[in-house]
């Protein structure tokens, strides 16, 4: 085959294969001189060198839309913002948000002896769904993030030059938060890593021995951190911040996990006798403002400065909606109009995922206990739809109005928010994290464990009297168990309390129910190993030698 192609010419574009003008000149002779070429070459090589040197600098990255993280641990102002950041992360860690990754906290409200679970979380409660690879790993991951950020403040903050008192207050808050997170982690997983060294650029890739810390090591750290916090923190702080009250409360709670009843009792006594806190009238406990004398710590929320976890106002919580039936779905036979429309009096828009069960109800003295009126919605519903003929009147028919739980069931009122739009299920009302009655109950138990029944009854009766009940004169674990349910139900405390006293499995199996219709509720068997969560598989994968919890 004969070659039929062009001579090599400089091709400038494909539509026109050559440019005639350019090579018309090439008949002229271009005499070149080797020496001259070498000079040109040398010059250009020098140009290259300049280029490469300047390029190294030219390629340096300088992030201008974010703060360099080293800055925040090395200056007084930085350290303050680091503590602010820690609080924000902490609020996210401990509250429930309706996202797959942040449902973990909600689980502790549901997976107890006090609830019927209609939907949403039930698949994971002590069933096949509770597997390491599917289970809420944020509880582990975000916990350690908080711990590392707290440790960064605690370790690196020591070298920041600022007034010692001010510095210790910042460090004390970080220590209290670190203790709070470690307490949460150890009580969920039992087997955890202990790490107090902040991660830095230089140590991030150091080899680590992955093995569970002993219970003693963990509780010693928690105790030390809290003792420091108690020493440097005031009682009188904003309810959203960590003060001596919270530090002591946590100190008491931690001590009880290791049967150190004396320490627990002493700290509860300190809080109760501090004069900072007092029980408020029952109607104020979950009233419009939660910034009252009973509150030890609350998670602050604010719609106008919020919208996302990282914003000052945080993000809305569906806690109220989750524990509340949709009364606006109740139908009256033969009626076209729904008798109830979405209204904040009945919690507004709701989910009805998880509701208080008959066991909890049976614990209350119906004639006296005022908590029935202020912690729960009433059984009898009044029509509020102006178009309905039951407007302003009780709905007709015997209770229940519907056997479907999502439409009607006894519901929790602790998170009712009158300020949210009735059509919204997210609430920006503050949420109480710790309040004085829990201190009283911890104190009661701590004193009872030390056979100081007198003091124990004093504390127990303080809670009972406020609810309108008479003094009780006997005290044992069952009395505390029941009072704990009556006072602190659906506040995320029960699961940890039951686990601590060793009654989680038996209580759950006896009373927890699941289902969408009250006529077809079922129970599930919780196994003993379920009292501790599986270590997230993603973490086992990267911590090759860390053992999975037994049973998983």
């Amino acid at each position: 085959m004969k070659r039929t192609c062009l001579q090599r010419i400089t091709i400038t574009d494909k539509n026109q294969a050559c440019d005639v003008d350019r090579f018309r000149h090439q008949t002229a002779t271009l005499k070149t001189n080797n020496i001259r070429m070498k000079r040109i070459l040398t010059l250009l090589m020098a140009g290259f060198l300049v280029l490469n040197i300047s390029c190294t600098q030219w390629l340096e990255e300088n992030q201008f839309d974010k703060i360099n993280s080293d800055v925040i641990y090395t200056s007084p102002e930085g350290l303050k913002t680091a503590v602010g950041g820690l609080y924000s992360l902490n609020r996210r860690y401990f509250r429930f948000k309706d996202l797959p990754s942040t449902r973990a906290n909600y689980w502790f409200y549901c997976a107890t002896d006090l609830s019927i679970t209609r939907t949403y979380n039930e698949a994971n409660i002590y069933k096949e769904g509770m597997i390491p690879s599917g289970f809420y790993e944020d509880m582990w991951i975000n916990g350690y993030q908080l711990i590392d950020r707290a440790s960064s403040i605690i370790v690196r903050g020591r070298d920041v030059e600022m007034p010692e008192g001010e510095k210790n207050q910042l460090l004390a808050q970080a220590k209290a938060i670190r203790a709070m997170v470690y307490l949460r982690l150890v009580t969920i997983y039992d087997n955890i890593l202990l790490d107090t060294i902040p991660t830095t650029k230089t140590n991030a890739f150091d080899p680590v021995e992955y093995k569970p810390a002993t219970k003693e090591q963990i509780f010693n750290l928690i105790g030390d951190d809290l003792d420091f916090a108690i020493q440097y923190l005031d009682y009188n702080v904003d309810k959203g911040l960590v003060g001596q009250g919270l530090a002591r409360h946590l100190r008491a709670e931690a001590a009880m996990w290791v049967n150190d009843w004396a320490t627990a009792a002493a700290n509860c006594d300190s809080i109760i006798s501090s004069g900072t806190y007092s029980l408020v009238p029952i109607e104020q406990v979950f009233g419009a403002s939660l910034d009252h004398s009973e509150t030890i710590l609350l998670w602050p929320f604010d719609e106008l400065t919020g919208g996302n976890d990282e914003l000052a106002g945080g993000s809305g919580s569906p806690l109220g909606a989750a524990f509340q039936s949709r009364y606006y779905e109740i139908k009256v036979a033969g009626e076209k109009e729904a008798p109830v429309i979405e209204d904040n009096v009945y919690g507004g828009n709701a989910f009805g995922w998880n509701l208080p069960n008959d066991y909890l109800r049976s614990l209350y003295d119906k004639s006296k206990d005022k908590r029935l009126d202020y912690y729960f919605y009433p059984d009898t519903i009044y029509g509020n739809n102006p178009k309905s003929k039951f407007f302003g009147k009780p709905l007709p028919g015997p209770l229940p109005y519907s056997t479907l739980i999502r439409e009607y069931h006894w519901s929790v009122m602790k998170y009712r928010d009158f300020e949210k739009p009735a059509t919204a299920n997210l609430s920006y009302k503050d949420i109480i994290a710790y309040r004085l009655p829990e201190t009283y109950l911890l104190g009661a138990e701590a004193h009872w464990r030390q056979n100081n029944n007198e003091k124990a009854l004093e504390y127990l009766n303080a809670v009972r009297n406020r609810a309108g009940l008479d003094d009780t004169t006997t005290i044992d674990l069952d009395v505390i168990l029941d009072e704990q349910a009556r006072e602190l139900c659906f506040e995320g405390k029960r699961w940890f309390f039951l686990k601590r006293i060793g009654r989680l499995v038996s209580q759950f199996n006896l009373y927890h129910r699941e289902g969408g219709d009250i006529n077809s509720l079922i129970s599930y068997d919780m196994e003993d190993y379920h009292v501790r969560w599986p270590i997230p598989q993603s973490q086992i994968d990267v911590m090759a030698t860390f053992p999975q919890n037994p049973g998983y």
Partner: protein
Amino acid sequence: MKKKWLIDFPEKGDLKRIGLTICFTLIFLVGSIFTVSATDFSVEAQVKTVTGKVTNPSGLTLPGVTVVVKGTSKGSVTNIDGNFSIDNVSEDASLVFSFIGMKSEEVAVAGKNVITVVLYEDAIGLDEVVAVGYGVQRKSDLISSVVSVKAEELTKIITLDVGEMLRGKAAGVQITTENSGPGGSSKIQIRGKGSLAAGTSPIIIADGVEIGAINDINPGDISSVEILKDAAAQAIYGARASNGVVLITTKRGETGKASVNYTGYYGMQTVHRNFDVYSPEEYAQLKREAFRTTNKGVYPADEIVFSTIELESLKNKTYIDWEKEVLKMGSIQNHDLSVTSGTEKTKFFLSANYQNQKGVVPSTDFTKGMIRFNLDQTVNSWMKVGLNTTLSISKANDLGVAGVLNEVVRSSPLGKVYNDDGTLMLHPSGREENWNPLNDLKEVTQIKNNRNDLVNIFVDISPIAGLNYRISASRRSWDYNEDKYSTINSNSGSYNAAGGGSITTKGNSAWTIDNILSYSKAIGENHLSATIVQSLNEINYDEFALKFPKVPNDVLGVYGLESALSWEPSISGYQRRLSSLAGRVQYDFSSKYYLTLSGRRDGSSVFGENNKWGFFPAVAVGWNIYREDFLAGFEPLTNLKLRASYGSVGNEAIKPYGSLASADKWEYMAYGEKMSGYTPGSLLPNPNLKWETSTTLNAAIDFGFFDNYLSGTVELYKTNTTDLLVERNIDASTGYTKMRDNIGEIENKGIEAQLNAVFVRNEDLTVGAGLLFSANRNQIVKLFGDLNNDGVEDDYPANNWFIGQPIDVFYDWVAIGIWQEEEIDDIPNSAQPKNKPGSVKLLDKNGDKILNEEDREIVSKLPKWLGSFNFNASYKGVDLSMDVTTVQGILKYNGYLAEYKYGGDLRGYFNGIKVDYWTPENTTGTFPRPTNASTPKDMGLLAKQDASFVKLTNLTLGYTLPASLIARLKMNSVRIYFTGQNLLTLTDYYSYNPEQNPDDYPESRTLSFGVQIGF
């Protein structure tokens, strides 16, 4: 300017131009090496001037044909009448005539003064020039893997997305629809997925300049698209080339040819879904079944199951067909007007384009206008300047239809669309789960404005023969502005009891300076060319968004933000830079034996301090066997080439600042005030971050028989990508969860085949067909190493990464049916002791009654092979063409068969895609028993569907008016055509399009009519 070392140049002009070259060089910090040859150019014997004319077989004159005196670089180009004239041609010389798409002719002068030549079309176009990185090459000289797609192939596809036009046009290129809505785009993937976390999109280069997206180019301006597939072709783009390179060449003015062209079409669009939702009666029954299950197997009264509105609807048999209510006929139109003209010195191409698409989902539309101006100006004998510029604006009404389309599938057919007063009912079934899909279409506006400008100026300086220096500077800027507003009546507004909106602006500006020095030289049969490129690139990006969730009234829409009760601003930005030096040497002997060496050294700002630079070399060899003498006697063979290449390219498609430690804003409240807070994010900075490198071995054979009436290419490749950029999970006790890191290795290997045949080609009738086939196998070779010291490379199940398996796999238990009533005694002793009849039965592989990792199965999601077939025929003025594409063996998860939010979980809250569910009466059902309580366990295992398809993508019938008629109309050419797009899709995947989910914008069938007019 007069430098001592320049003074003994012979001519003043030479001195000036050399001086200028060097000035440019230094001004822009060019580091390039002059390799000026010292060869003398002797003046040839001058004998005569040769003139002549070039025509095609039917006698039409051919302008723009290159005429060169063989063995020299002297030549000319035919003018508008096909005439040429060359001075000083020696008596014994030969003239070579060449033209794109035509076979070259060589004619001996042999004393003639006038030469008339007829050029014939080349079936394969071996002399066709294709774009390669920083230059062009003739197809016959090509030894790397470059596929060229012609403009006509692209623009016959009725879509506004250039990516979609490439579907089925090049072997090894997979186009997957990402958004078929107005203004939507497709994903382009070349030769499999080669990265775990870094980008896998090819870079798009238009006229030598990287552009933001393929749709920044008006399809009508495209002259050709080249896809660079192997390392030898890509290495000159080093840094960013590991996912392939798409080179777009736009049209330019031509000497002596002035024309005005109009092309345009208008089409109507409809949708076709290949799945059924439950009919109203079936849906009612599903609901009863779901409630029955939770009511101890007894059907509850309808009054309990249904809402008041649903009951009414059932009683009166007034049902809703949501698809009919929502989806309407859409339209698409595209108009191009271009002017091209050229004199010897000045050539330009000017075009204006208007695109408009009204979506099948009402209130969605897209309008775009583009202008291009390409200019080539010859300044003098050694200098040319050029300009490529394009300006485009577009506006889209795109309210994010996923929610709307989801409701089309899942919304209850029981209920009422409108209230009695004619307003839309928010919850048509009376249940709050069911939202009226028409509501947000009416109450939400989201307007997206894009402005995209590109200006590229270049100067070509050719001081001596064969040497060309080009400095090219370009600036691209993109501005995006989005206004979104939802009224108080919208779904979100009714929730918040207030309207709200957001304003977002994004934009980047990028500039690039390229210094390109190229030289080519022939010494006897030796042909040598070299290219050196030095390039700097910088991209600056900024984004600002302001959300205002609560606006007291809707009167002003987004302009009411001033009165909003709160604002949530966010701002971010980045800069990334790339500095590169590349070189390429191409050598061939006698156009038989080829060798190319190329390499590029890139520095990218996004990597760790000590790892910014990477070097990516490649080598390619080729052998044009058919030019060997021993095959000279074998007449049928017109092309036979073996070629192979080996080389590496890099990937830097990760976000900037991965090696830096930064803190995020995390605020809190205390004492009623905002409390400032900062804390490091969850990404641990990695100061050692470096390039991801892909190394490819490519081998191919090109062949052609019978004057290339039958031709094709078979290509084999193997690409190993190492130092994969991933965002790996790290031990969370560090306080961080992820880190960008370089780990492991992935291998992609495959085969690509392309076959073209021309069955008939004569003056009246042409019939041809083409076949493309490609298969890619992907596997993970290495990940993090052997962490647990058991001597075996570790898998990474958390991300479904397994050694020896493809990147995208399902790692699941295996569903083997539904538990039956008669098995009720077996269930407690099975691996699923808590199951009930009607739930999904899983395979307990080893029979140990525990479902664990050992019972899981790894199944690839990636396609087994891709193919396409095209057919074209023309008879006199009538032309017909057809494109069929197929993807086979691809597995996809369809959430509509399993998930609550898609109505797939058989709970009776939503309608959904119809499946055969199990009931005590229907024991052959393949899906679990409906239950009102919660999503049946393991349903997701049933949602894996074979998403293979065969699609008739294009069917076009055209008619070109006869020349005699056109001449009377004083026009150059007129063609009218009808096109049907996506007329038929065969697939088992339940969706509007097997590449997308049912809530994605539905792909449309388009019927259109178009004209092409040339003046």
